C-alpha cells in the first residue's frame, strides 16, 4: 500500500492550489457569483493553460490523466477555493460521455474542450426522476435521418454556459429501464434556455424539449447509453465528494482561525472546552471524509460493482459529514457566518447543496443497501 500522491499529481495539486489562491480569492469569487454570466471566461482560459482541464482526460483522449486520483486531486482544490466554473459539467459529465461513446468526429471535440474553447453540459435529470439514473421520460423518435426529442429536463447545470448539451432520451423500454436510453449531442443554438442562478453558484436552465436533430447527433449506440451514464456518474460522484472535502477543509480552517481569534468574555472562544470538543469532532469526521474520497477515487477504475459500492458509500458519508461540518462551522462562528460576504457562507452552501446532485445521503444509503444484499 502507498497513500502518497505521485510526483506529477503532487505538482498538479501545488500548481492549482497556488493558482487558485492568487487568482480566485474571495473577492474575485464574490464578483463572479454576483455576475450575470455566473463564471469567469478568463479563469477558464487560465485553467486550460495550466493543464487542469487536460489532467481530467486520459492520454488516449488527448489529456494526461483522467484517472480517479487525478479527478480527486483537482476537485479537492476546486472545492477548497469554492470554484463555481463548470468544470464538472464540461470535463466530467460531458467529456466522459463523449470519450466513452463518441465517434471519431465527436471525439474531435475533446481537443477544443481541453483547450478551453468549448464547454459542455448534460441534460439528464427530469422533474420526476429525482436521483434515479435510469428514469428517463423524455422520448426520442427517429424518422429516417431525423430524430424528434420531446420532454422536459430539470436543473440542467452549466447549459447556459455551454456550446453543446448532451441530452438523454428514451427510444424504447419502460420509463425506468436501463435499456433504451440514448444520448444526443445538441448545439445550444437548438435549445430554448432561460438561465437562472443556483444558491451555491453557477447557472442552470430548465429545458422544455420539442426539437429535431439529425441522426449524426446521436452519441453512442441506439438505446445503449446506460452503462456510460453509470460510469460517468461514478466519476462525477468522485469529483463531487473530493470537491466537498476541499470545501470542508476550508470551512474547518476558517472555523479554527475564528476560534483562536474571536474574543468573548475576555478570552478567545477556542479556550472554551464545549467548543474545543466540537472542533475535535469536526476534525475526526473530516478524516472519515478524506478516507471516503480516497475509496471512491481508488476504486473508480475497478469492477463496476466495487466502484459503485465505494461511490455510494462516499456520497452517503459525505452527506452526513457535510451537514455536520457546514452547520457546526456556521454555529461556532455565530452571526458573522450568516453574512453573504464572509467566505464561509458560500463554502457552507457548496458543502450542503452537494447533497442535491448525483443522489443524496438517503439515495446512496439505499443504493448501498441494495449492493450489500
Amino acid at each position: 500500500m502507498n497513500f502518497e500522491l505521485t510526483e506529477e499529481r503532487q505538482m498538479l495539486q501545488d500548481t492549482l492550489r497556488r493558482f487558485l489562491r492568487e487568482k480566485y480569492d474571495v473577492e474575485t469569487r464574490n464578483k463572479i457569483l454576483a455576475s450575470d454570466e455566473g463564471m469567469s471566461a478568463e479563469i477558464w482560459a487560465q485553467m486550460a493553460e495550466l493543464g487542469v482541464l487536460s489532467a481530467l482526460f486520459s492520454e488516449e483522449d488527448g489529456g494526461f490523466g483522467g484517472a480517479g486520483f487525478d479527478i480527486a486531486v483537482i476537485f479537492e482544490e476546486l472545492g477548497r477555493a469554492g470554484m463555481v466554473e463548470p468544470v464538472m459539467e464540461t470535463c466530467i459529465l460531458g467529456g466522459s460521455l463523449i470519450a466513452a461513446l463518441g465517434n471519431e468526429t465527436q471525439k474531435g471535440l475533446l481537443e477544443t474542450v481541453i483547450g478551453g474553447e468549448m464547454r459542455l453540459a448534460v441534460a439528464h435529470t427530469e422533474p420526476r426522476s429525482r436521483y434515479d439514473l435510469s428514469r428517463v421520460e423524455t422520448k426520442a423518435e427517429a424518422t429516417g435521418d431525423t430524430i424528434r426529442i420531446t420532454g422536459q429536463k430539470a436543473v440542467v447545470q452549466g447549459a447556459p454556459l455551454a456550446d453543446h448539451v448532451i441530452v438523454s432520451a428514451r427510444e424504447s423500454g419502460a420509463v425506468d429501464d436501463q435499456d433504451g436510453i440514448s444520448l444526443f449531442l445538441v448545439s445550444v443554438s437548438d435549445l430554448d434556455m432561460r438561465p437562472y442562478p443556483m444558491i451555491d453558484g453557477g447557472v442552470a436552465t430548465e429545458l422544455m424539449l420539442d426539437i429535431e436533430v439529425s441522426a449524426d447527433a446521436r452519441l453512442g449506440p441506439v438505446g445503449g447509453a446506460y452503462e456510460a451514464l453509470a460510469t460517468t456518474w461514478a466519476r462525477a460522484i468522485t469529483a463531487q465528494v473530493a470537491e466537498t472535502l476541499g470545501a470542508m477543509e476550508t470551512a474547518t480552517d476558517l472555523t479554527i482561525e475564528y476560534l483562536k481569534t474571536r474574543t468573548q468574555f475576555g478570552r478567545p472562544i477556542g479556550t472554551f472546552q464545549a467548543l474545543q470538543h466540537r472542533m475535535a469532532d469536526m476534525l475526526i469526521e473530516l478524516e472519515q471524509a478524506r478516507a471516503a474520497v480516497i475509496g471512491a477515487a481508488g476504486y473508480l477504475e475497478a469492477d463496476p460493482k466495487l466502484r459503485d459500492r465505494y461511490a455510494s458509500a462516499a456520497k452517503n458519508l459525505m452527506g452526513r459529514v457535510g451537514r455536520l461540518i457546514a452547520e457546526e462551522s456556521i454555529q461556532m462562528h455565530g452571526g458573522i457566518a450568516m453574512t453573504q460576504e464572509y467566505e464561509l457562507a458560500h463554502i457552507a452552501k457548496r458543502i450542503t447543496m452537494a447533497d442535491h446532485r448525483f443522489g443524496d445521503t438517503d439515495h446512496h444509503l439505499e443504493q448501498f443497501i441494495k449492493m450489500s444484499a
Partner: protein
Amino acid sequence: MDLSYTDTEKAFRAEVQAFMRDELPDHMAEKVRKGRGLTKADMEDWHARLNAKGWLAQNWPKAFGGAEWNAVQRHIYEEEACLANAPRIVPFGLSMLGPVLQKFGSKEQQDHWLPRILDGSDWWCQGYSEPGAGSDLASLKTKAVRDGDHYIVNGQKTWTTLGQHANMIFCLVRTDPDAKQQEGISFLLIDMDTPGIEVRPIVLLDGSVEVNEVWFTDVRVPVENLVGEENKGWTYAKYLLTHERANIAGVGFSNAGLEAVKRMARAEMAGGRPLIENPHFAARLAQAEIDLSAMSLSNLRIVSMTAAGGAPGLEASMLKVKGSVIRQEINDLARRACGPYALPFPSEEVDGTNMPPIGPDYAGKVAGEYFNHRKISIYGGSNEVQRNIIAKTTLAGGAR
C-alpha cells in the same frame, strides 16, 4: 392532568381562525408561504388590521391598550397564525420595548411612546449587539456622554433586524466606562433621523436584507429619552430578554413547517413512488414529528405554568435549544424533499408571474430558508449561551 383545551380556549381558537379567514389578505399569505420578502407596507397593513381588532399588543395590559392575553391564548394565536401563513408581528416595539416602558418608563414616556407603537407611528428596532459584543452582550462599547440636556452617542450596533424600516431605535449604551461591565449601561431611545446615524444593510447568506449595521457619530439624544435610571440599563435589558423569549420554542412555525414538508413529500416522487412512502425519508419525518410532539407538550406545560403566574427559568433556555433544533431539522427535511429543485435560486424578477415556475412552487424557498434559519440557534442568546445558563444554574448549586 388534562391535555385538552377548555371550551373557552376552543372558542378563542375559532375566533382566531375566523379572523385569519376574514382579515388576512391572500397576497400576503401567498408571500409568506413562498418565502418572499414582505414589504414594509405589508407589515404595517397587518399590524393595522390586528390593532383594529385590539389584538396587536397581545401581552400588554388592557390599561395600555393591550389585549392582555394569557400565555395559552398567545400560544393558540401563534399556532393559527402560522398555519394561516400570516406575517409575524414585528416584535421590537410590541414585545420588547413596550413591556420595558410599562415597567420602567416614566408616565410621560408611556403616554407618548406606547400609543405610537399601537397606531404604527413609530417603527422600532433594537440596538443591542455590537461587532465585539455578541454572546458577551455586557461587553458592549457604544458610549453615551452627558452634555447638558443631551447624551452624545458614539459607536456601532449590528444585526439590527429591519432597521432599514425603523424611525426609532432603543439602545444599550455605556454611560459609566469605569463601572463593572453590567453596571455602567443605560437604556436610550434614539430617533433614527438624528444627524450622525448611518444604517448600512448586511446581506445575509440567502441574499436577504433583514439585518443592518447602525453607526453613531456624535449623535445628540435628549436626556428625556433615557429610560429609568442612568447605569441601570442592564436590568431593563434582562427584563426585555425575558419577553423576547415569549414563543421562544417556535412551536407554531414548526407545526406549519412540518405540514408543509408533508405536502411536499406527497407531491415529490422517488423511485416512481411518492417520497412520503420512501422508508428513509419517512423515518426522518417521523422522528422530527415525534420530537416536535414532545416539545409541544413541554411548551404547553410551561405555557400553562406561566399563565397561572409562574415564571419560566431554565425551561425557557431548554425550549430555546430544543425548539430551534427541531425547527432547523424541519427546514432540513424541506430542503431534502425538493431534491434537485432545491438548487435553483432565481431572483424575484426571473421568478415573476409571467415566467413558468422553475420546478414546484414550494421548492423556491427551501434552500434559502434552510440557510437563513441557521440564525435561529444563534440569535436571542445562542444555544451555547442557553446551555451555559442551564449548566451554570444546575451545577453551581443554584435552585432548579
